[in-house]
């Protein structure tokens, strides 16, 4: 008897659930109805995601959007959770939805196919050029310029250590904690290294990977391993406070990414390079508001303020760093310095004269595009997401 009762209740539950549904968003849009969504892989504790969150909040203030017009979904995995999050944001009435992590891409495309009236903008992705979806867009910035410039600050610090007799010239070994070993990370580390070596010619670099975007313990452990193996300066492309804190503990200078880490390492954090996403957020949001097209694949530059360095920590940096940074920044902006100038590095002892990169992402992982143009590896010019994936140029090696 009680079984039958349970069965009836079970059926009733399912029916009531189905009955509750039915209302979907079909409302008229006016200015105050305009809504923006952001999907983040982690939350504010991740430097990477925090950089997005702070930028969106800044834009919210600037464009005068209410709290009820901006939705931020945090801790959304690179799985179907991303599609679910996007669909929920559509139900909330969002007109434009951003996602911040590389692995979110195919789920954003899935959502873009299903909701053609909503704009989907995916940061760091590679597929917008091959998808032919008018409401799906990629964005990145020429962060290699920022990394190069941050490398200059690192090179100044290395020189100071050499000149002060703390280390010998050949001991100027940089340690780099990478998340994954694909183009985005490889391009970032190489440009950072080239920047450092442009100032400190004897610099070399050791790299190790955590295979995770955010893992405090692993990032800390990796940084400590690098320090123990003789690295005298650390930088990272991973999103937690692990490496900066390890550096502060050991008194080793650190160059970070995304946000200023001076509070985590008051005596060791030198500077950070970052993408200022507010530039893209503003561009995309205004485009939707004005009924204009969002670029299919947008790449911000240092010149337009999309790539920045955070405040220099004078307490940790070498004297004269700021002046040097200003000088190099001007040269990067006017094109006098090209980050991936093939004359400045060799691969296997030889200068790079030709390189086929995987620029057109058709899911085949096969390179098809010549990337060397006029003696420069033309990073991010054919597609916003980096495609410099040479592991490694001479001077960089695995730990």
């Amino acid at each position, binding site marked *: 008897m009680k079984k039958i009762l349970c069965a009836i209740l079970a059926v009733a539950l399912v029916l009531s659930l189905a009955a509750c549904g039915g209302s979907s968003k079909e409302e008229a849009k006016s200015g105050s109805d305009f809504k923006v969504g952001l999907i983040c892989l982690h939350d504010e504790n991740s430097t990477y995601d925090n950089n997005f969150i702070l930028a969106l909040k800044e834009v919210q203030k600037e464009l005068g959007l209410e709290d009820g017009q901006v939705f*931020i*979904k945090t801790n959304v995995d690179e799985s179907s959770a991303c599609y679910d999050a996007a669909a929920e944001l559509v139900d909330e009435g969002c007109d434009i939805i951003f996602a911040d992590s590389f692995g979110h891409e195919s789920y954003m495309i899935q959502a873009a196919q299903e909701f053609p009236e909503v704009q989907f903008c995916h940061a760091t992705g590679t597929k917008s050029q091959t998808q032919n979806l008018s409401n799906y867009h990629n964005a990145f910035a020429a962060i290699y310029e920022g990394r190069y410039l941050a490398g200059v600050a690192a090179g100044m610090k290395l020189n100071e250590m050499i000149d002060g007799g703390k280390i010998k010239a050949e001991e100027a070994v940089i340690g780099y904690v990478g998340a994954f070993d694909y*183009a985005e990370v490889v391009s970032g580390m190489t440009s950072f290294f080239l920047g450092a070596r442009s100032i400190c010619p004897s610099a070399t670099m050791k790299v190790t990977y955590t295979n995770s975007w955010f893992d405090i313990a692993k990032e800390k452990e990796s940084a400590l391993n690098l320090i123990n193996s003789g690295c005298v300066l650390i930088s990272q492309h991973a999103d937690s406070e692990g490496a900066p804190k390890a550096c502060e503990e050991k008194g080793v200078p650190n160059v970070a990414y995304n946000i200023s880490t001076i509070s985590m390492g008051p005596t060791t954090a030198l500077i950070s390079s970052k993408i200022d996403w507010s530039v893209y957020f503003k561009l995309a949001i205004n485009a939707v508001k004005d009924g204009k097209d969002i670029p299919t694949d947008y790449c911000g530059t240092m010149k337009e303020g999309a790539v920045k360095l955070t405040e220099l920590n004078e307490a940790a940096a070498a004297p004269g760093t700021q002046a040097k940074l200003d000088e190099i920044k001007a040269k990067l902006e006017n094109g006098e310095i090209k980050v991936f100038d093939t004359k400045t590095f060799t691969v296997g002892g030889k200068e790079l004269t030709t390189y086929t990169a995987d620029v057109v992402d058709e899911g085949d992982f096969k390179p098809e595009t010549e990337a060397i143009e006029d003696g420069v590896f033309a990073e991010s010019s054919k597609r916003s997401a980096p495609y410099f994936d040479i592991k490694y140029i001479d001077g960089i090696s695995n730990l």
Partner: protein
Amino acid sequence: MESSKKHLKEPLIHITRRTDIPRVKAWCIRLVAIIASLVVCGLVIVLISKYNPIEVYEKMIDGNFGTKRKVLNLLKGTSALLCISLAVTPAFKMKFWNLGAEGQVLIGGLASAACMHYTRLQFGNSISSWQLILLMFATSVVCGMIWGVIPAIFKAVWKTNESLFTLMMNYVAIQLVGFFIAKWVPTGSGVMGVINLDTKCGWLPDVFGEKYMFNVIVVAVLTIVMFIYLRFSKHGYEISVVGESENTARYVGINVKKVIIRTMLISGAICGLAGFLIVSGADHTVTKNLAGGMGFTAIMVSWLAKFEPFMMVFTSAFIIFLQNGSSAIAMKLGLNKSVSDILTGIIIFFIIGCEFFINYKINIRAKQKEAK
């Protein structure tokens, strides 16, 4: 002993087992527990945020029933959790501590994803979606069975500890998923992404024009089948007897080894089915976190429902309700997701805790106590 007992002072509190609590009273205790948990959650909300608890609970309900999609998501989550709970039930009823549902689901999901990936490479568009779905179904069920039966054979033949064995099989499954994703997606951040996004080949079709309904129907049928199997079949009876006492089972001529292996084959197969349903009917991809801890939550669902398949509909729906509600609070109120996890934790703590008061009676000294 007995004579000395009279001289001893009776303890202030002592606990006796209840065997005949009326159902109404039991449900009253559960209701009180839920209300108490909501009050404690309310206090926590007031202490750590500026929000009105009622508003938070409203958002929680809205997060599950606010739109059609939210209802569908509730159904999707419930069907997956219920399917896994049904899978672990026969084993737990037999007192075989299968902590490996997570891995069995994962390996089923991996098998489905592998079918999708390799048929795409081999046949392109020349295979029909239904052919692929059948292939995925069969492969997943078989793989789930294999993952479940390995510890069962070791337990039946060599008396190994099944809790540890099944638990370790989870890690093997996780690593296998990691291995295959790295093999299939040589660059990038270790994410498989949606498989067959362009062709939708191997995706379970919409039923009644809705996503996930296929899963819901399959799991609903499975619930009924599992109820009949456990309640009315000879197998179900054998499972109960082995669970009560292996010696009794042997005495009445039940082949215990056979029952253990057969039951784990079934348990593994249903886990494999769950993996297939998740990949084909919902996620269309595989990740290391495909089962998302549901292999363990399912144990709680099954125990809370006292191994009754129809009760599990409610317990699993309740757990998913809390999960989805939590993430809605996190987004709507801008609270960190950890806050909502804390709330879920408090509610589940009270619900599990109240079972103690249903199964045991607390006697306080002042009261008169019967001698026997």
